[in-house]
């Protein structure tokens, strides 16, 4: 049957609103230019200026499918983009969407340094070309006991790591987020120290699931979701999936992580999703899956968020109650 069912069409092939809206802008621009060129002294080329390649809402593709993707119901994009924990832009769930609109994410570069043979500074455009982009539909589980399903876009972080060529002394990878009081004034009342920092053990960073992420739902990341580049580790609580990365550093010792600094008793370095180890103040045995139904669904939390096959071997013999 040539006519596709809606579910046969990957999200990446649906023309994003930004693209067809830009076509209208283009046509409007031509009309305006024709009218204005006689009045204004500006060159016509200014009116026909193409939108920056990586502005918010740019389509990303082509996208390879991934065997790591789940077929569970996607969370509606409206919810993924309006229910965020990004305290630099305010601590209410609806704040980041409201207050990150002016966040400048271009130009952007990520520096990679530390215990590596080939340190460097990568522009976003360079990063996007290091490997074919994949669509990975991951479950994303917040420590607050709610979860979403998001079609992320990126490639395994190990690609970048191999380019940097870590030395044998590198045991951990440290990450740092962008922070700037002028663009993120609300961050000062967040109750956590900024800039946001995170870290992984080297094997966790090299695990194929660990995604260097550039987009979601077929487009580049919205500001409130960690534009323009972030990490996603689906087997860990969401706060470990650090947003808006500016620095990657390979280090010898376990690096500091923001939530561990804020409250070591509640937030450990590993923070693997584990229904058997409760948060000191609430149970982690179940979660509310935000699947688009009005109230969502309460479901049992799975060990490692259901990614045990890919990650459990990294933790054999480790007491996960001690190393929470």
């Amino acid at each position, binding site marked *: 049957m040539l006519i596709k069912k809606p579910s046969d069409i990957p999200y990446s092939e649906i023309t994003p609103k930004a693209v067809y809206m830009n076509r209208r802008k283009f046509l409007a621009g031509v009309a305006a230019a024709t009218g204005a060129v006689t009045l204004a002294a500006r060159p016509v080329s200014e009116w026909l200026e193409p939108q920056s390649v990586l502005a918010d809402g740019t389509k990303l593709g082509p996208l390879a499918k991934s065997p790591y993707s789940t077929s569970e119901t996607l*969370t*509606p994009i*409206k*919810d*993924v983009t*309006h*229910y965020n924990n990004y*305290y630099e832009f305010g*601590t209410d*769930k*609806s704040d980041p969407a409201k207050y990150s609109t002016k966040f400048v994410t271009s130009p952007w570069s990520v520096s990679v340094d530390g215990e590596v043979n080939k340190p460097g500074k990568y522009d976003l455009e360079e990063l996007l070309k290091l490997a074919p982009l994949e669509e990975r539909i991951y479950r994303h589980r917040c420590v*607050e006991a*709610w979860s*979403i399903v998001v079609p992320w876009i990126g490639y395994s972080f190990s690609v970048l790591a191999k380019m940097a060529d870590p030395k044998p002394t590198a045991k951990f990878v440290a990450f740092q987020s962008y922070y700037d009081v002028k663009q993120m004034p609300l961050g000062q*009342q*967040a*109750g*956590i120290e900024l800039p946001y920092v995170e870290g992984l053990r080297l094997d966790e960073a090299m695990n194929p699931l660990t995604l260097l992420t550039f987009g979601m739902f077929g487009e580049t990341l919205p500001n409130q979701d960690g534009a323009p580049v972030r990490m996603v580790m689906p087997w860990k609580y969401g706060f470990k999936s650090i947003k808006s990365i500016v620095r990657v550093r390979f280090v010898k010792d376990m690096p500091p992580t923001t939530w561990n600094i*804020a*409250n070591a008793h509640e937030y450990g370095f590993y923070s693997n999703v584990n229904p058997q180890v*409760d948060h000191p*103040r*609430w*149970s982690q*045995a*179940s979660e*509310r899956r*935000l699947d688009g139904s*009005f*109230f*969502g669904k*309460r479901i049992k939390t799975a060990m490692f968020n259901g990614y045990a096959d890919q990650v459990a071997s990294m933790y054999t013999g480790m007491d996960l109650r001690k190393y929470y």
Partner: protein
Amino acid sequence: MDLSRHINVRWLKPPVFLLCLGPIAHLVWMGFHDELGANPVEYITHSTGTWTLVALCVTLSVTPLRRILEQNWLIRFRRMFGLFAFFYGSLHFTTYIWLYSGFDLHAMIDDVYKRPFITAGFTAYVLMIPLALTSTSGMIRRLGGRRWQLLHELIYVSALAGAIHYYWLVKSDERVPLRFAAVVALLLGYRAIFYAFQRREKAAAAKKSARESVLSA
């Protein structure tokens, strides 16, 4: 100047009642217009909880206000405000047992037993039940003024437990819970000071009358 000389307090009651229904009406409206966000259960829980604390603070502010402003008629709204605190508290509690926990009794018992912030919240709510049940004039008569007054001082514990419940549940941004705690502390502090002054005056008056009776003897 006693304002009740100029306004018929009875006519104020219906509009104030409707005002108190405002929050739940707004919540229902938002529900039907899909404006409760991505996680409506969390939104409803948070909203009903906040309004419970607001209603408790409003109830507790009646007595300080009527004394300081010398508007005794304010007392006639105290029961309404108190019952609205119980109303919003009941909505918050119902959201917890029905929408949040799905009537999972085992999980809820676990929560109350193991999560201090839920223990505090549960205490705050449960203490309001006898107050709601004995809120009628008939009940005041049956219990007698003194016993009724003592029982209803449980609202102080409720308000404190409620403020602690909120403070203990937030992850990092403590500003709003701390503001509520400050208001509750202020409202209870007023009573502590008033009570201390009352005792001093009573002691002084007792001493004075004892001296006079000795002198006149």
